[in-house]
């Protein structure tokens, strides 16, 4: 019975999400605002992955910009090549200005749409798997892992700035078409929004299945007692790498959608600052919950757009202050605050989700990687 109610609630939840994303938002938002919302959904897709890796897995992934950028650049390269082909040019516009007459070798595979789509999935996940295994097998964790992933984001951003063949610090801009559809046409922009919304729902569904499966329980166990898990006969590195790879995949797909939606992909979307910005929404929303990261990411991005229109410089301070307050005083984020308030009212904690899941309750330990630092 409980199981049936749980299943019903799940479908109802996804139904509400679908109505809001596919019905309500396009109806009430102007084309311009819908485009912005589509961008926020990209950040939300990244956030779902961070919620899994950081909230449930305890890995402070401070370098998701790397995977976001990889996905974005791969998509961007394909879009530039197709745009050039439309006007019968051999190379994209920015290369012509730079006097390049022949497409660089590493661009060529991305002329094919199929190769591009496969690469968006395979390249970031492959890198994440290799990196993850190398790092986790050596038991690098906690702050060291965070610093490493952040250094990687910085390194990739610097590398990209130096590469004129991918547009240097300007990145890839002025996309005109998306798989043959003109990006000037509002209908096609709306289609991109719908794709982003569908991908977000799908990524939430995948994350939900992972969190509620035995794997999800195991991941929380690894977060809270990596050594103990080892003595039960598991290799924690393999468990962590799965969450890390899934987070990388979501970030990559989000980047690949970001490029056509926003119209550019640049080193400024790859480095340390954007990587931290991804994290802020997740922390504020509640990193251990399923929907906290999504709502947090959308909320923070929305607030940033609204407020920075009016108070461009103050917003940065407000964002930083919010991050400090949440991490310092509400480590479980706003979602955790909700649970806390409900408890104070004395209401039992059911109805929160299909199955009361202790792993999603506020984390009493503000730093899940503390246990790792000790070992």
């Amino acid at each position, binding site marked *: 019975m409980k199981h049936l109610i749980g299943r019903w609630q799940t479908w109802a939840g996804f139904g509400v999400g679908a109505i809001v994303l596919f019905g309500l938002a396009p109806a009430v938002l102007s084309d311009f605002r819908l485009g912005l919302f589509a961008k926020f959904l990209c950040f939300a897709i990244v956030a779902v992955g961070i919620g899994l890796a950081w909230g449930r897995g305890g890995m402070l992934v401070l370098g998701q910009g790397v995977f976001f950028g990889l996905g974005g650049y791969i998509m961007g390269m394909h879009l530039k090549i197709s745009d050039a082909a439309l006007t019968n040019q051999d190379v994209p516009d920015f290369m012509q200005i730079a006097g390049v007459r022949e497409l660089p070798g590493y661009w060529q595979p991305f002329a094919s749409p199929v190769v591009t789509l496969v690469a968006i999935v395979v390249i970031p996940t492959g890198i994440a798997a290799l990196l993850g295994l190398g790092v986790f097998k050596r038991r690098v964790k906690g702050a060291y892992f965070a610093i490493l992933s952040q250094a990687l984001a910085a390194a990739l951003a610097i590398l990209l700035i130096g590469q004129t063949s991918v547009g240097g610090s300007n990145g890839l801009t002025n996309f005109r078409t998306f798989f043959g559809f003109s990006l000037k046409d509002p209908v096609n922009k709306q289609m991109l929004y719908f794709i982003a919304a569908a991908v977000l729902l799908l990524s939430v569904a995948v994350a939900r299945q992972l969190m509620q499966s035995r794997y999800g329980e195991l991941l*929380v166990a690894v977060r809270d007692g990596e050594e103990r898990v*080892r*003595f039960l*006969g598991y290799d924690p590195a393999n468990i962590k790498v799965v969450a890390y790879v899934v987070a990388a995949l979501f970030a990559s797909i989000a980047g690949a959608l970001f490029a056509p939606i926003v119209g550019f992909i640049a080193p400024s979307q790859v480095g340390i600052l954007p990587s931290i910005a991804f994290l802020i929404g997740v922390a504020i929303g509640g990193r251990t919950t399923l929907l906290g990261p999504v709502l947090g990411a959308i909320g923070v991005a929305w607030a940033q757009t609204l407020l920075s229109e009016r108070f461009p410089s103050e917003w940065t301070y407000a964002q930083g202050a919010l991050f400090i307050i949440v991490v310092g005083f509400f480590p479980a984020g706003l979602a955790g605050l909700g649970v806390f308030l409900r408890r104070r009212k004395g209401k039992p904690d059911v109805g929160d989700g299909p199955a009361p899941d*202790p792993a999603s309750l506020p984390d009493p330990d503000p730093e899940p990687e503390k246990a790792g630092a000790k070992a």
Partner: protein
Amino acid sequence: MTELETEVHPEPAAGGNAGMGTQYLEVRGLTVDFDGFKAVSDVDLTLFQGDLRFLIGPNGAGKTTVIDAITGLVPATGSVSKSGQELLGKKVHQIARRGVGRTFQTATVFEQLTVLQNLDIAAGAGRSAWALLRRRSGILPAIEEALETTGLADLADKPAGVLAHGQKQWLEIGMLLVQNADVLLLDEPVAGMSHEEREETGNLLRRIGGERTVVVVEHDMDFMRAFATSVTVLARGQVIAEGTVAEVQANPRVQEVYLGTAAAGTDDLKEES
């Protein structure tokens, strides 16, 4: 193992109750060297199924280090073989998969997960990726049995973090049971427990010790006397005596070691704790 044997629950006995035909752990010349300091030197231990062996000794005798070495936590030389399989040099999780389980001085359970989830994880080291990606449904018979054995059945859906100190230790022992470990290495399981909890833990060890090899590192001499079937005494990283409780207590070297370290020592080790 036949149905009959599992029903009867054989009592633990000194030297084991099943002989060499079943599971055994053979430690030979185990040496742990921390940068020139020999925490454990040349330790030999032979443990048969059905033996409830207590490992005692003064502070710093190397008791926990012996367990750490057997379970792969610290590098060691010598040989540790479980029923003929060499364990030394294998990784922690590989040793665990070969049926050697351990607990820690401070109970380490997954506090955010329920008792049932803790046990389910302990039972799942051999699960396929496909099984892992699906939801837990129902309770495995082995877990049901462990809940009964450890007396935690009523608490199955409680987060492990709210359990009392003693219950956490029992949960850890339950996790070893479902993990299918036949060599159980328990590091001070009754430290910090009340008198009743000690009694219950001892009875629990008796219940599970008949079909497994159980090694208990302990400081509590009353507890040792009440439940041990055999005892090994360590001092300064070496085995100085081995035998039944009475034999060990009568051993002059053991008395000397304990008198030398315990300020209020008596000749029957009573005050050492």
